[in-house]
């Protein structure tokens, strides 16, 4: 069935690395501001105000276009896209267009993704520079049941890149991986911090079993993209199975309820009345500028994956997953340098950490704060010294990410409080069982304990901490003694 699914994405990414908005001097960091305090006559669209392009946005867009192998236009042309909506101060958006002799900043290009070992190339159709809108807030959290709506224009005018793909994605999972990869490319380029709330949003076009395509709007993260598409595939297949008709429509993803719902307002495509913005003359994009930016491009995820696989010996697939998240990859490299064992670290990060971060509903940065290099290395050390089993290690990672608890704190509560004996305790018990005489000697004479410690050290091939072994044996002996 999945082979019948075609998905294309329209991704909106805020250029969060800019200091100011796209056409005025208001700050790019608006998230902490009280509503409507990060505004000026320009981004509020007051009568008589005029936009002045933040030229740094061109450099950022060119870097992205180069990273996606897109062809870059020799000039930047802005158009006005008209629609009435309360979050749009001028009731038109300054954007770009690809008809009537107009051109977006870049067209074409591609992104390669590796989905569970399967390689795919996703073609890029075009990249636009445009301005973000404000935000509508409802006193009752949703439009339903709210008597009024509030509008906050702090976000209005933030520079956005709109990146549109061809319908090359075949599964919700591929779509998620693509979006993660794109986010990672943008982070490696230092164009955007996609972990910021609302910094990367996607609209998805999905067509199932050759039926008309349905657009899903308002998707805020790669994880939600996968969820929304899974929901939509199931919904549409159900309709197809029961002989129903799928209409071409726009639906909205309702994150809280995990469903998509049909838009109440019909979106009239082709009624945007695009025309060149007379306030913004064309800006030439010189070859020299493009070449200079190309020369200073940083290491991008694909190159980084190749390097990591080689340098740390973690395997191509692991490397390709690590580079989907720049911060995760940085964390991997830092931690591997500090405490060695890159294979174990990559396995912990990919197989355990990511899962619990998802489960906790936190972003990777917050996850990393909870499983810092310090904590991660401590766990690796415990494991290597035989203090904990691989099973317990995983359990520690789970607790660290979900509950933000330091592993040392966990250990000080006693190793078995977690409902499992440690590897080391298991070994101690083994040695005690195998040496009943030495146990009896040791209960009488504490000095005789050294023999037992030596036996345990032998079993761990010297990896265990002798002091710790000593402690455990003494604890066990006192338990025997009291019986």
């Amino acid at each position, binding site marked *: 069935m999945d082979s019948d699914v075609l998905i294309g994405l329209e991704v909106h990414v805020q250029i969060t690395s800019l200091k100011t908005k796209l056409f005025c001097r208001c700050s790019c960091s608006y998230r902490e501001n009280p509503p409507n305090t990060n505004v000026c006559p320009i981004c509020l669209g007051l009568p008589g105000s005029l936009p002045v392009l933040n030229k740094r946005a061109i450099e950022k867009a060119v870097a992205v276009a180069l990273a996606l192998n897109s062809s870059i236009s020799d000039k930047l042309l802005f158009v006005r896209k008209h629609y009435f909506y309360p979050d749009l101060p001028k009731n038109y958006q300054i954007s770009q267009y690809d008809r009537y002799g107009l051109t977006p900043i870049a067209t074409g290009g591609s992104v390669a993704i590796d989905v569970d070992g399967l390689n795919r190339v996703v073609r890029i159709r075009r990249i636009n520079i445009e301005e973000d809108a404000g935000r509508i807030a409802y006193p009752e959290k949703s439009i339903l049941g709210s008597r009024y709506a509030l509008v906050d224009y702090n976000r209005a005018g933030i520079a956005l890149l709109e990146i549109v793909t061809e319908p090359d994605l075949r599964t919700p999972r591929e779509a998620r991986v693509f979006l993660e990869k794109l986010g990672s490319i943008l982070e490696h380029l230092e164009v955007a911090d996609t972990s910021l709330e609302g910094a990367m949003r996607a609209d998805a076009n999905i067509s199932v079993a050759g039926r008309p395509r349905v657009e899903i709007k308002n998707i805020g993260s790669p994880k939600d993209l996968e969820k929304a598409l899974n929901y939509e595939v199931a919904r549409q297949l159900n309709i197809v199975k029961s002989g129903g008709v799928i209409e071409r429509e726009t639906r909205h993803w309702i994150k809280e309820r995990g469903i998509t719902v049909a838009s109440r307002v019909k979106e009239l495509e082709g009624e945007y*009345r695009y025309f060149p913005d007379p306030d913004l*003359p064309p800006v030439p994009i010189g070859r020299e500028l493009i070449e200079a930016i190309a020369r200073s491009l940083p290491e991008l995820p694909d190159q980084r994956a190749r390097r990591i696989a080689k340098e740390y010996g973690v395997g191509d697939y692991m490397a390709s997953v690590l580079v989907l998240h720049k911060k995760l990859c940085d964390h991997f490299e830092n931690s591997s340098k500090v405490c060695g064992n890159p294979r174990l670290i990559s396995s912990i990060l990919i197989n355990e950490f990511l899962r619990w971060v998802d489960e906790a509903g936190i972003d990777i940065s917050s996850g990393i704060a909870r499983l810092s290099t310090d904590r991660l290395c401590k766990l690796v050390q415990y494991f290597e010294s035989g203090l904990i089993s691989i099973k317990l290690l995983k359990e520690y990672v789970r607790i660290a990410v979900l509950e933000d608890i330091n592993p040392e704190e966990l250990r000080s509560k006693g190793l078995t409080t977690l409902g499992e004996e440690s590897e080391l305790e298991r070994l101690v018990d083994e040695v005690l069982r195998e040496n009943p005489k030495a146990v009896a000697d040791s209960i009488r004479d504490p000095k005789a304990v050294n023999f037992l410690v030596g036996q345990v050290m032998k079993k761990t091939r010297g990896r265990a901490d002798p002091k710790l072994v000593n402690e455990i044996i003494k604890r066990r002996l006192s338990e025997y003694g009291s019986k």
Partner: protein
Amino acid sequence: MLPPQCTQFSSISIKTLRERVREDSDFLFKYVEEVYRAIERYEQRLRAYITLRPISEVIDDIENLVKHGKLGPLGGALVAVKDNISTKGIRTTCGSKMLENYVPPYDATAVSRIKNSGGVVIGKTNMDEFAMGSTTENSAFYPTLNPWDYGRVPGGSSGGSAVAVAACEATVSLGSDTGGSIRLPAAYTGIVGLKPTYGLVSRYGLVAYGSSLDQIGPMGRCVEDVAIVLNVISGHDPRDSTSLRVNVENFEKYVVDYPLKRYRVVVLEEMVSEGIDEKVMKIFNSTLDVLAKRDVTVEFRKMPLLHYSLPTYYIIAMAEASSNLARFDGLRYGTRSEAEGKLWVDAYRKTRMTGFGEEVKRRILLGTYVLSEGLYEGYYLKAAKVRRLLHQEFTKLFREYDAALSPTSPTLPPRLGEAIVDPIKLYSLDINTVPINLAGLPAISVPGGFAEGLPVGIQIFGPPLSEGFLLNIAKLIESGRSG
């Protein structure tokens, strides 16, 4: 010649004002009182102003200028500002109910330059709503009357700015010109009005009508006053991306009553043939004689493309207007009409239906139409092509000639209510002025004489940035005319 509302004292020029103030420091205050006397006597009939500042505020401003020695080039001149140019703290209505109570939080660049050069804003002048009209009868508040004949219109859309100056209710004024809105009222009220090269004066703060056509320009009772104000308001402004990066000349030095070169001027036959009033033609011909006596060579040429300039102009102006006026929805500022329905679109609809006048709605509808999918190429794109051709024709023409001459208006000032009933007749008043805006050229209207006691304006236009020579030729006409 001045209308009966003026006295010798109230009609004083900026230069004389500056000189007299140097001799007598109280002169400026006596002058302000004289102007307010004229206002007191005539303003109730003429209605040049929408908002007039109280004399006490104006005197405070002047005292401040005197105290800080900042009388500057404008010497305390009282500047009437068209009500579509933003003034901080003074309401800016655009002659519309929609903005009846809108008070801008910022000054237009032209206004701040006036203030910084010793000018004092005396009030905001009446205009056709959003500058759409040629008679000032489209003001949502009241029409302004022609000081030469109270039964006639003063022209528009900067009718209030023209009458304030003509009737000596201000020293000079600022108007805006999208298709003739400075020149036509200047011609009908017997004053001088200059529409600068597109980009010479910043549009920042001018409430946009047709952004690619709009220019702010000076209006005054003599060529010299206009040159002095042009000096102040022209020059590059980083807040307007269409502002030209040119070093501004001192335009005053062109205001001499001898020719600064052996001028070759051209008369385009299309501008003096169809529908031109004989009485207007008589004055125009006598002006050509005046110039011939000053060694100016006059030749006649044809430019058939001019036949297309009116439809081209109206397509472009209305398309841009429909976009520029989209922002007036009553949500963020301006008048809001509460609607019966629950949806925000209902509120928008009601606000825009009741807030805009008929002519504004007509132009928004026509503009929306020509930008619609399927019609765009036939209207807007075609108009843009004609505009480019027109630009090329003028470029060729001005390789041979220094300037061109025409009557500013084909007729004498229409009677009240005469033109406004027929949109086509109304639009054709602009027949000689719109081609200049389409090509972005500078033009000046200077009084050429009187017919039946009514002023007749002569338009002089030239290649981009030829304001200096236009002022010189205007000065030759001013000092050479008999009436």
